[in-house]
């Protein structure tokens, strides 16, 4: 006979643990591959091309690039983790197990999103460490972190936003194509146009105004402020936009869980 049953924390912690174990089991795909791509970005754009680029405020291009790549790695992997977990569960059928089990929607959302955030933070940290190596190689010194708490806050907010988006899209998607379309046609352009590789100050007036509607601009610049102590946008504005984006994506994820499909493909 079962003596003790805890349906508040045990289901949540179990699903969180399962999600962590899942991405650890495929660590080549989930951490090593992003490590390789980050290294290539840093070597090609940061070290090779970056040595020929001079920014107006005297910041080396490599130092400008590192926070962008850290955030890009974090966001991409948080999105990939939650969405691929749900999609693979739709293929294998075990998503129906989650529906049949006594989870509350919040327990599912938070378990999946926090595990996705962990993967995002791991990849972000790996990217940062590779960036530090490149920076040392270029300038003989390591970068300092200007505001660690600010850096961590933006990584957490951004990671959770993208984890929630991954959950939303994966629950709504009826086919793998729909999933890929959202990732390829909406999220990737937003990330690349959010100021990972360039400063929005360098954009012509019209395009700069358009960029200001991209929430990722604020998240990426929040991380940049945390690392460098300077960014294209005011950090408080960036924090407000990031918080708002988090609340909206949380609402979307909860809604997708209630209305989306748990049934196997």
């Amino acid at each position, binding site marked *: 006979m079962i003596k003790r049953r805890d349906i508040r924390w045990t289901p949540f912690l179990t699903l969180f643990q399962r999600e962590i174990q899942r991405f650890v089991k495929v660590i080549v795909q989930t951490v090593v591959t992003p490590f390789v791509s980050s290294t290539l970005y840093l070597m090609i754009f940061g070290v090779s091309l970056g040595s020929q680029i001079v920014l107006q405020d005297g910041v080396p291009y490599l130092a400008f690039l590192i926070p962008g790549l850290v955030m890009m790695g974090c966001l991409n992997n948080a999105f990939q983790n939650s969405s691929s977990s749900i999609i693979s569960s739709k293929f294998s059928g075990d998503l*129906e197990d989650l529906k049949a089990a006594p989870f509350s929607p919040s327990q599912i959302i938070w378990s999946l999103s926090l595990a996705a955030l962990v993967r995002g933070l791991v990849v972000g940290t790996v990217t940062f460490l590779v960036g530090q190596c490149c920076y040392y190689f270029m300038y003989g010194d390591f970068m300092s972190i200007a505001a660690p708490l600010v850096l961590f806050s933006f990584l957490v907010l951004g990671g959770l936003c993208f984890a929630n988006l991954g959950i939303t899209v994966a629950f709504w998607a009826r086919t793998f194509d729909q999933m890929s379309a959202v990732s390829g046609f909406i999220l990737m352009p937003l990330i690349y146009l959010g100021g990972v590789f360039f400063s929005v100050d360098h954009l012509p007036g019209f395009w700069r105004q358009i960029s200001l509607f991209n929430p990722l601009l604020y998240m990426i610049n929040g991380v940049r402020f945390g690392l460098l102590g300077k960014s294209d946008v005011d950090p408080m504005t960036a924090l407000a936009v990031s918080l708002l984006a988090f609340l909206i994506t949380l609402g979307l994820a909860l809604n997708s869980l209630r209305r989306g499909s748990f049934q196997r493909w």
Partner: protein
Amino acid sequence: MSQSNTPALSIENVVKNYGPVQALQGVSFDVKKGEVFGLLGPNGAGKTSLISIIVTLEKATHGRARVFGHDVSTHPREAKLNLGWVSQEIINSGFFDVEEILKFHAGYYGVSERADRIEYILKGLSLWEHRKKKVKQLSGGMKRRLMIAKALVHEPGLLLLDEPTAGVDVELRMKLWDFVEELKGKGLSILLTTHYLEEAERLCDRVAIIHKGQIRAIGGTRMLIEEWSRKKVTLRLTEPVQSLMHPDLVKGSGQEWVFLTAMTKTLGELLQELKLNSAHLNDVKVDEGSLEDVFMRLTQEGKA
């Protein structure tokens, strides 16, 4: 209703529409505590739709499903805690081995330390030596047993078995039947859907026959057989007769005559109606009706 009288499962006038298609048309029945209840019906009868509503994968268009008194739509968590479900299709869980899957599954239901229970179930289902294998390394029968193990790991009061022995070889099917009987002996309530009428006849206390979303008959297996099937009586007489007049006569001539009679009619009553006695008989062969006869009769359009 007192707690002790609350049925393990109560289905009340459940309707399920998929667009213009009515999959369930006002289905009602109870599964009593400790009872094995069979839900029999041909493909597309609505069995899996009903199971999907009970486990909340689908919402009923109308009506209620309650598990130990908890409405699955208004109190789903309480209902699900008492529920174990074995789906018709194999679930893969590709990343994890058998033991990990069961630990996670117990955790989903709020149970964190279940090593003893997992060992008991895996041994009972002959999976103990395969506990470190991934699902894809298991045979079809083992996968099916793993699904039963998952459904039992949190000790539910009600087990839903949706065609648990579909695609399973005869030997394993027998083992699973033994295991279900063992569970029944321990007081577990079970709702079983199956195509194997032999399975229902052996395991179920009561069955409901569902066809086109409607319950056509419900009751004890013996009662249904007596009520809905006919027994075949073949009389071999000592001397040939030219004719026998009886409404149950199917065929016959000379010394051999075949009748399809109600299960409740005795041989003596039949002979009396035929104005024969035992001295006229050389031999008698009686083929009892089966659940299959009941099933065929009730699921053939226009005869129910």
